[in-house]
C-alpha cells in the first residue's frame, strides 16, 4: 500500500511507538533494576535511570550469588539450559521431519489416522498432559536425568505439521525425477528434501530453541537434583526465599543475562527465520 497521508503516517507511527513502549518498558525496568544495589530497590519504586552497581551485581550473580540459595553456579545452570534447549531443538526437528516424511511420502495402513493423532496432540500443551507424562517418566526411572528433561518435550506436533505442509508443496515430479535418477527414499530425503527444507529448519530452530530455553514447569517437576537445575528454575528459586529480603538486583541481573541467548539466536538467525516463514523455494 503506497499512500501519502501525513496524518495516517503519524497515527501508525504513534501506535507502533506505543506498542513498542508497552513491550519494552518491563525489559527496560529489569535492566535498570539490575544496575542498582538492594537498598535503592527496597526503599521505593525502581528508579528509571541506571544506577552505578552494574559491574558489581553482574559479577556477583555470575560468581557467588547462587550458592547462597543452594543453587549450582550461574554458568552451570546456563549450560544446563543450553544443553536442554539444544537437545530439544535438534530432537524435535529430527523426529518431526522424519515423521512428516513418512506421512507425506509413504503409503501405509492408518497413515491418515497417524497424522490425525499427531495433529490432535497439537491441542494438548505440555501442561495438560503433564501428570501422565510425569508418571511415565517416573516409572521409567528417568527422573533427574537428561533423558527425563528432554525426551518428553521432543515429540512435536507443530513441527511435524509444518514440515508436512511444506512437503506437500514440493512438486511430485521432483520425487519422480529422483526415482528415474536412481535415488531411493532415503537418498531423495537427504539429497533433495533436506536441502529444500533448509529455511524451514532454520525458522523452526529459532522457535524451538526459545521454546526449550524458557521451559520451566517440566524441569521443575522432573529434577530434584540441583545439578540439573536450569536457569529458569534457578531464577524462580532465588525469588522464593523463606525469610529475609529478595535480592532483586541479582534476580534482575540474572534474568537479563538469561534473556541474552534467545535474543542472540533471533538476531543472528533472523534472515533465515524470515525467509523460512515467508518464502517457499520452488
Amino acid at each position, binding site marked *: 500500500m503506497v499512500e501519502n497521508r501525513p496524518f495516517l503516517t503519524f497515527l501508525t507511527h504513534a501506535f507502533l511507538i506505543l506498542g513498542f513502549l508497552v513491550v519494552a518498558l518491563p525489559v527496560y525496568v529489569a535492566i535498570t533494576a539490575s544496575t542498582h544495589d538492594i537498598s535503592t530497590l527496597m526503599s521505593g519504586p525502581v528508579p528509571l535511570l541506571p544506577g552505578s552497581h552494574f559491574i558489581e551485581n553482574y559479577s556477583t550473580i555470575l560468581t557467588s550469588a547462587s550458592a547462597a540459595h543452594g543453587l549450582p553456579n550461574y554458568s552451570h545452570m546456563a549450560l544446563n539450559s543450553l544443553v536442554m534447549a539444544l537437545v530439544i531443538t535438534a530432537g524435535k526437528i529430527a523426529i518431526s521431519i522424519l515423521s512428516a516424511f513418512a506421512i507425506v511420502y509413504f503409503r501405509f495402513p492408518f497413515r491418515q489416522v497417524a497424522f490425525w493423532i499427531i495433529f490432535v496432540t497439537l491441542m494438548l500443551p505440555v501442561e495438560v498432559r503433564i501428570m501422565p507424562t510425569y508418571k511415565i517418566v517416573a516409572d521409567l526411572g528417568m527422573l533427574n536425568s537428561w533423558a527425563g528433561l528432554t525426551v518428553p518435550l521432543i515429540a512435536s506436533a507443530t513441527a511435524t505439521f509444518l514440515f508436512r505442509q511444506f512437503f506437500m508443496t514440493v512438486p511430485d515430479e521432483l520425487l*519422480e525425477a529422483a526415482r528415474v535418477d536412481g535415488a531411493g527414499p532415503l537418498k531423495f530425503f537427504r539429497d533433495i528434501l533436506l536441502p529444500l527444507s533448509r529455511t524451514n529448519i532454520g525458522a523452526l530452530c529459532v522457535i524451538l530453541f526459545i521454546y526449550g530455553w524458557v521451559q520451566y514447569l517440566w524441569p521443575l517437576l522432573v529434577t530434584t537434583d540441583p545439578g540439573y537445575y536450569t536457569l529458569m528454575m534457578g531464577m524462580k528459586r532465588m525469588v522464593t526465599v523463606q525469610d529475609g529480603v529478595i535480592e532483586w538486583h541479582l534476580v534482575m541481573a540474572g534474568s537479563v543475562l538469561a534473556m541474552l541467548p534467545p535474543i542472540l539466536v533471533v538476531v543472528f538467525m533472523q534472515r533465515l527465520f524470515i525467509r523460512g516463514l515467508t518464502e517457499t523455494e520452488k
Partner: protein
Amino acid sequence: MAGIHIAEVSKVYAGGVKAVNSVSIDITDGEFIVLVGPSGCGKSTLLRMVAGLETISGGQVKIADRVVNNVEPADRDIAMVFQNYALYPHMTVYNNLAYGLKNRGTSKAEIDARVTEAARMLEITQYLDRKPRALSGGQRQRVAMGRAIVRKPAAFLFDEPLSNLDAKLRVSMRGEIKRLQRRLGTTSIYVTHDQLEAMTLADRLVVLNGGRIEQIGRPLEVYHAPASTFVASFIGSPAMNLVKGELHGDKLAIGPAMVVLNGFAPTSGTVTVGVRAEDIRIARADEEALPFRLEYAEELGAQRLIHGTVGDQQITAAVSPEIELAPEMQIAFDASRLHFFSVDTGKRLPGNLPAEAKLAPIEPVV
C-alpha cells in the same frame, strides 16, 4: 538403444476407472513415437507406466526385450523429461545433470565428460554453475533434456515437455528435440495434446481416445486416412468437416444438395461424410455445387477460413484470401477427397482411401 514393446497394457485405478484399456504398440529401435489425444485419454498414464512411475494393472511392457513390469524406474534404462522440468532447485545445472550418474556410481571423470558433452550439445555450457531459478523457461527445458541425455538411456520419455513454453519458443524447441533425437538415434516416446506437435515430431503417431488406441500410423497416413471420426476431428487444423450424408447409389445427398461420386461410394445409406477444409473450393459456374451460407470469416494471412452452413450442417472451408465473400456462396469438392465413416461406430468405411496414392514413404533425414 532398444525397442519398446507394449502388449495389451491396461491401467485400472482404484474405483474401477479404466484409464488405459488394452493398448499394444510395437516401437522399433530409434523410432520417435508420439502419443496424442485430448486430456484424460490415458496418454500420460501410458507413458508413466512405461517409465515405471505408475503400476501396470494388466499386460506387459518390454524394454530391450526385457519385461520391466516390476522393475524400478531407475533400473529400466529410460530417461524422462517432465512438463514442469522437475529440476532440483537447490542444485546447480551441473549437479542437476550429474545427479543421476552419481547415483549410479559413475566415475567423476566420466560424469564430467558426459555433462560437458551434453551441455555443449544443448548450448548451456555457460549456465552450468547457475541454479535453475536463474534460468529462463527455454534454458530450463534444455537442462531437463540434458539430464536425460547424459544418462545415455535406451529410451527417452517426454511428458508434454513444451507446454510450459511460449508459442514461439515451442516451435524452435520442437525442432531442436527432433534434431537431437535424430542425432542420438534414441528410441523416444513423446506425449502431447497438441496435434501440430504430434504431426511434426512423430515418425509414427498413436492417437488415443478414452484409454484406447484410435489409430497408429505415420503422420500423413493419419492425416489423409483417419481411421475414425475422432481422429478426423482431432488431427489437422481446422478440424475436418464432418456432416451427415445419404448415399443413394452413386449419389451423395448432403442436406438439399446432391453430389455425384463417380464410383467412390463405399456403401449405401446414411453415412458421416468427412472433408478437409482445404479440399473445399468455391464452385465454378458449370459444376454441381452446394449452397453455402456464410456466417463469419477468419483471416490467417495465407488463407482465409470461412465458416458457415450447408443446409443445417456446419462447414468450414479454407479458401484463398482473394476470393470475394458473399452471404450466399457455392462450394464444391472432388469426390475423391471425401472420407466416409460409419454413423454407428464412427469407423472409417473401406473402399475409399483418397490420399493413399500420394503417400510416398518418408525417409528420415539424418
